């Protein structure tokens, strides 16, 4: 650990920036969503009630609008520092204390730069393109909000029953912005970049959607809040581990843990088997129409199905990440802005604030993609520690201590512990995924456009279909989330 100091610095930086992001969003939400309505309740007029309602309704939008720019700023810094660590450098460490304000300064610089519209460009389209590119990421964030805040009442406004469908629809709009920008720039490189982006987004949308459909199929719902809820209860319940395929195991182990008294050992052993039997064997036997004597066969099939399910879902996750990387134009799929070929692709001609918006949207998209992965595969705001292990480690005591400490804050509704912990877990998960994306960015070269198409259509799409079919069959034999 000769690099301990640097890693520590990155950790501190991350913590500080998280506090800044959270503080800002928190303050905005608290003031608009709780403080003002509370203050208004004393006036018993229609206007006051209306205002209070409007404030509440605006809270989710406001939170997203506050969150996205600050978060994007931090993500750029995070990526630069992360890459610096991988490449044995220091990274930006001059502006502000240890470079904390580097990207803030960059943002300010971009805002003050001259906003150039090249001659021959279609000025209207040229201006519209960044907006079209950026706006959908806000739409996409809306339904996720409820899922990642542990369905806090304030953020329920956009709780669509077809949440994931809406998110996917929103996330496929930005490509229109790219094509628009590429075409309006009146530059051959931009045009090629824009067209490439269109081709790429269309191709990689399919494996991306199919892998998410696989998850929805297991969950039996399109509602992201529902999907997040289903996975609560520790790491073994997450979709990435078969979406409840290990639930029986979980229950069985928890039984075993709960009965620590030696007298109950015998009982627990039998109940352990019983639970396993009831969760795995019986549904399988039922589905296959097997009789009482064929439990062994049913057990083998059930075990096989569980393994298959978990394997398939891991592949689906890989497909999702691949498709998502292509969707948001990150290495190794950054062909629309392939620097060595197309100078800078669709944003060659952009400068100043328009470029800043492109930049912002790129990182916001990365965040949204990562948070979709967190919600769909990694249990949303769920604590990864299973309840039985948590109990063994003294989790409830810690929780009560924290609750005790937070009581004054909870009373004035400043803190809602379920929401707080859910968001912390989501952020941790999302940034782990982002960190992995940074690692990929530091390693892989870029595809060529025809190879990219080949890879998308000839490899990923068939694979995602296979995974889909496998999951359809495997979930018949395993007691997944559905019906529990």
């Amino acid at each position, binding site marked *: *650990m*000769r*690099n301990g100091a*640097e*890693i520590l610095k990155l950790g501190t930086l991350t913590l500080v920036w998280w506090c800044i992001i959270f503080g800002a969003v928190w303050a905005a939400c608290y003031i608009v969503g709780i403080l003002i309505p509370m203050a208004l309740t004393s006036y018993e007029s229609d206007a006051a009630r209306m205002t209070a309602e409007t404030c509440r309704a605006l809270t989710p939008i406001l939170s997203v609008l506050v969150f996205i720019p600050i978060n994007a700023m931090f993500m750029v810094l995070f990526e630069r520092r992360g890459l*610096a*660590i*991988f*490449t*044995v*450098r*220091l990274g930006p460490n001059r502006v502000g204390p240890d470079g904390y304000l580097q990207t803030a300064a960059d943002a300010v610089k971009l805002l003050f730069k001259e906003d150039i519209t090249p001659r021959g460009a279609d000025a209207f389209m040229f201006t519209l393109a960044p907006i079209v590119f950026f706006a959908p990421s806000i739409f996409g964030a809306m339904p996720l909000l409820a899922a990642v805040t542990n369905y806090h009442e304030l953020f329920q406004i956009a709780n669509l029953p077809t949440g994931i469908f809406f998110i996917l629809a929103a996330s496929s709009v930005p490509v229109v912005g790219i094509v628009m920008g590429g075409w309006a720039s009146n530059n051959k490189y931009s045009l090629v970049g824009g067209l490439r982006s269109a081709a790429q987004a269309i191709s990689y949308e399919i494996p991306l959607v199919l892998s998410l459909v696989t998850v929805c199929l297991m969950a039996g719902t399109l509602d992201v809040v529902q999907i997040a809820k289903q996975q609560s209860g520790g790491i073994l319940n997450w979709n990435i581990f078969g979406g409840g395929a290990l639930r029986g195991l979980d229950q069985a182990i928890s039984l075993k843990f709960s009965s620590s008294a030696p007298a109950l050992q015998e009982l627990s052993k039998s109940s352990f088997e019983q639970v396993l039997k009831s969760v795995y064997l019986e549904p399988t036997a039922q589905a296959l129409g097997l009789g009482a004597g064929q439990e062994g066969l049913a057990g083998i099939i059930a075990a096989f199905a569980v393994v298959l399910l978990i394997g398939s879902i891991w592949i689906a996750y890989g497909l999702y990440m691949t498709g998502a990387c292509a969707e948001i134009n990150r290495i190794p799929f950054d062909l629309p802005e392939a620097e060595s070929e197309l100078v800078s692709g669709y944003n060659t001609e952009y400068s100043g604030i328009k470029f800043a918006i492109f930049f912002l949207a790129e990182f916001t998209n990365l965040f949204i993609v990562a948070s979709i992965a967190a919600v769909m595969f990694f249990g949303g705001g769920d604590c990864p520690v299973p309840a039985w292990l948590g109990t063994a480690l003294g989790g409830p005591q810690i929780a009560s201590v924290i609750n005790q400490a937070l009581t004054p804050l909870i009373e004035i509704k400043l803190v809602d512990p379920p929401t707080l912990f859910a968001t912390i877990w989501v952020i941790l998960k999302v940034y782990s995924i982002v960190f992995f994306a940074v*690692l*990929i960015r*530091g*390693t*892989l070269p870029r595809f060529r456009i025809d190879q990219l198409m080949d890879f998308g259509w000839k*490899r990923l799409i068939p694979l995602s279909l296979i995974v889909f079919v496998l999951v359809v069959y495997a979930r018949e034999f395993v007691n997944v989330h559905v019906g529990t």
Partner: protein
Amino acid sequence: MLALSLVTRAKDSLYQICRGLKTVAMHTFREPITQVYPDKMPDTNIRGRLALAVNPETSEHLCISCRQCERVCPDKCIEITAHKSPETNKLELIEFKIDHGLCMFCGLCAEVCPTSCIINTNDFEMSEYSREALVYDLRKLTLSQEESRYYFDRKEIPLPKPKPAKAAPAAAGAAKPAAAGKPEEAKSESEAKVADAKAADAKDAKEVKQADEPEKQTAAPEEKEETENKEGSDKSKD
């Protein structure tokens, strides 16, 4: 069969990608190689800014106005003004200009200097707001005694022999204490250098002149001076 080969290939590819990712990720635990430049000055050995050294022991100026550096400079960025002192019949340095905007830091001037007067310092921070400011004059070029000692030690240049005492009053140009005359006897090695160069110059002085013509046109009066200088330095050699 096809499916199997596809699976194997996919597996191999994944393995190789993961190997690359692992190698990159393991770099996390290496010490960063960045040099934090303005906080910690690098210990360089570069041929940096040119400067004129003084004798580290007696602090007299080492330049003997022999114009070797001026002649050898590929960029013609050195300009020396000197005149022959009527009393001592020796060359006295009046002005020494180096345009660092033209200089390419090849170090040839430092190589040919018979008295190790002109040297490349380690300094590379010379940014200025105008090109004119990059033209360094004698005052700006001359190093202090301590700096000279530092560079003489560092570059392992043998110390020059001190000048006989009688030349000191002649050099007492009060405004420019550094602009002293040259030491009477250069070291034997540097003398050989001078002799060599002189011999070479004498042979094809005509040719050199021709090449220098455009530069000399502006400074026509200097032309005469140069021939004088040559005589002077020749005499001093004798």
